């Protein structure tokens, strides 16, 4: 079925539209689901994406020629009707819904089902072919309630007024979500951020996401950061950068933190299981909900999800896409 859409190692090709979805090599015409580097690359001729994703790409790769597509807006391209539907992953993230020849294909990009104050919630779209991610495609991955994880962060902060809590969070999406969740729980103090996040946070604010008072962590005396939260990319947690901080409690916000050994390997003291990806239950519930004739699994622990589909009489196949899954993103 749907011979008009072809999975390749470097992306998904939509033949009648002569366009690629999330291609990993530069292409003339690219449909991009969201701004993370393993989906949105630089160097394409023309990009169709949400306004937010285009802005993120412009920030990361400089200006590129692009067409902004609003959520719900229909774009016609070589006999294919294309719609961008919220995926709930990060600001501007979209599922791409393609209708052609009486068949509907939904490419999710990355997604999650639980609430995120920084982006629109995932909307399930019933379809014939459902192309899903499987980053956390093992039944050991069940993300706990976000609120309980944020509470643990605040408890640690208040119990250690002489220290600071350094939260490792991916610079696009996770960092802003953690900050907004803190604000939603009444945390009004300034939050210090690593230099690598400043521009992305400013971009979020331009799109109306209020994160309260953010201060650059650079150039601040250690004593002034005591009792405060500092957010940095995961790569900076154990790097020289963190030496200037006042005896930091190292936290990390990621779905991978569910596994003890993973957290220990990264020297994390306070693992926070907060993910921008669907956990096992969200993956399997979503497949049931959109009830596709066939499920394609793009990246992650596809074997287990493939097995689950088979045991639930759902036709499924794994696509071997290259260059996906930057672990920091979990």
């Amino acid at each position, binding site marked *: 079925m749907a011979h008009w859409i072809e999975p390749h190692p470097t992306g998904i090709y939509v033949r009648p539209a002569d366009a690629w979805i999330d291609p990993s090599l530069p292409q003339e015409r690219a449909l991009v689901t969201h701004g993370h580097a393993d989906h949105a690359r630089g160097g394409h001729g023309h990009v169709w994406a949400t306004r937010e994703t285009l802005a993120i790409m412009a920030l990361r790769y400089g200006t590129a020629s692009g067409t902004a597509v609003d959520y719900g807006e229909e774009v016609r391209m070589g006999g294919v009707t294309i719609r961008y539907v919220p995926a709930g992953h990060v600001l501007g993230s979209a599922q791409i819904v393609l209708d052609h020849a009486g068949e509907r294909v939904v490419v999710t990009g990355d997604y999650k089902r639980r609430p995120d104050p920084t982006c629109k919630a995932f909307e399930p779209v019933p379809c014939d072919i459902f192309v899903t991610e499987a980053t956390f495609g*093992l*039944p*050991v*991955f*069940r993300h*706990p*309630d976000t609120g*309980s994880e944020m509470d643990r962060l605040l408890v640690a902060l208040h119990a250690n007024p002489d220290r600071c809590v350094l939260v490792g969070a991916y610079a696009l999406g996770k960092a802003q979500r953690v900050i907004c969740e803190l604000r939603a729980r009444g945390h009004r103090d300034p939050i210090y951020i690593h230099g690598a996040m400043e521009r992305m946070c400013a971009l979020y604010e331009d799109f109306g996401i209020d994160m309260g008072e953010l201060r650059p962590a650079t150039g601040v005396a250690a004593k002034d950061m005591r009792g405060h939260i500092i957010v940095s990319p995961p790569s900076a947690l*154990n*790097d*020289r950068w*963190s*030496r200037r901080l006042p005896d930091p409690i190292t936290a990390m916000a990621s779905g991978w933190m*569910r*596994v*003890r*050994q993973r*957290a*220990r390997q990264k*020297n*994390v*003291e*306070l*693992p926070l299981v907060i993910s921008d990806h669907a956990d096992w*239950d969200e993956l399997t519930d979503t497949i049931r909900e959109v009830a596709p004739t066939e499920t394609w699994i793009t990246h992650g*622990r596809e*074997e*287990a999800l493939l*097995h*689950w589909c088979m*045991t639930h009489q759902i036709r499924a196949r794994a696509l071997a896409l290259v260059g996906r899954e930057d672990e920091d993103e979990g």
Partner: protein
Amino acid sequence: MRAFSQLLDALVYTRSRNAKLGLIAAYMRAAPDPDRGWALAALTGNLDLKAVKSSAIGDMIRARTDPILYEMSRDYVGDLAETVALLWPKREDQPAELDDGSLSLSAVIDRLHGVSRAAAPDMLAQMMDHLDSSGRFALLKLATGGLRVGISARLAKTGFAQAFDLDVDDVEQVWHALSPPYAALFDWAEGRTARPDPEGTPYFRPFMLAHPLEADSVDLQDYAAEWKWDGIRIQIVGTGTETRLYSRAGDDISGSFPEIAEAFAGHAVLDGELLVRGDMQGGEAASFNALQQRLGRKSVTAKMMADYPAFVRLYDLLIEGDEDLRAMPWEQRRARLEAYMPQLSSDRFDISSVIDAPDFEALADIRAGARDAAIEGVMLKRRDSPYVAGRKAALWYKWKRDPLTADCVMMYAQRGHGKRSSFYSDYTFGCWTEDGELLPVGKAYSGFTDEELKWLDRFVRQNTVARFGPVREVEKTLVLEVAFDSIHDSKRHKSGLAMRFPRIARIRKDKPAAEADTVAGLKKLVS
């Protein structure tokens, strides 16, 4: 159960000893009885449930979930208890990540105590439904025996003592008179009753320790000299009916060396060095390397005991029968020890002899000439010194053999832990083979100053040639002068050598790497 499982989680993620003590202390103050007593038993390894075998847990999860998904999960996670704890499918009416608070730690222990092996899996499954993933993990670890959260019994007792402003050695004294869940211990700690009476139980007494000798000499009129043996310091405590062996940290290691405990039936407390006999030394004490084969084992096989037979070289007699000798001068205790020796089996016990030297200079010569692999140096003990806990100035000195040194080339570096987690502070270094290749000969992570560490860290970052996970390979240009106490043959390393206590003595920025030492040269130092 929730408070206990959260404590375990926190202990897993905490690296600093003080922070671990703080966590244990806070729990011991806050948790209700008898939960905290059971927790103390679990943390000190005194909880022996083993109601459930690992295989039964595997069967239990396979019956509840898709066996293939279980196998895939286990492959990914590694640890059985953690896999099952994360994977556990709760009943529909129970949220997956909620500990409903219906199970206290003591209720869990009571049930596991009373259950037969056959009925255990069902009961376990029932309890799993009321816990969150941390609780399930704790439950499975309790049920299968062994928490493995990286703390020793001594550390747990220290945390307990800290909670109630007690001296851990006072806790240690009464410990063996009590049993889980230690109601009498908490009663005493919180001032409700007098201290429990440890009489008749084999409890640990704090060791007397030595300062390094810094003076140029001491007067041998005042000080006696003994060899300092390179084994592990051990205390033998016998009540006449029961014998226990304690390490320097106060951990009970009787289980690791059953042949020693069995060979001692006396009613006394002795201080000595645990060593193993080596064939190479004609039945004399072997190097520390050989002893290492026996350390850290919960149980030992007959083969281990035959290949590495243990014995104790005695230093001191603290208590004989009901008589406490600790206040006596060392000379008198020594005489009592010598008189005590004949009743001990010579297979398992001998006495550390006093070095006969007319003056300090002669002693220095004897020390310099000592080539025995099991000698670490010389001890100097004031002839009138009582046996007192800890290090007291001017009573005992340790005078270690001068370290050996070698010029080695830094090959790899790895980041440290805790405060050093942003520094490349663990270095693997090598020496040259005849073919002009570098072979790793050791690893060191101490000996340098903070300034030197900063310099080394910068060197590693600027001279990285490859990365393997947390490890960086560096340009082979930097010579490190490495000091070590001794060097031994080892099958574990490609160079065939293993250093004892290697540390960085100097950074030899002046020396070209090609002029570093050779593996053949190091082999000549093997003792």
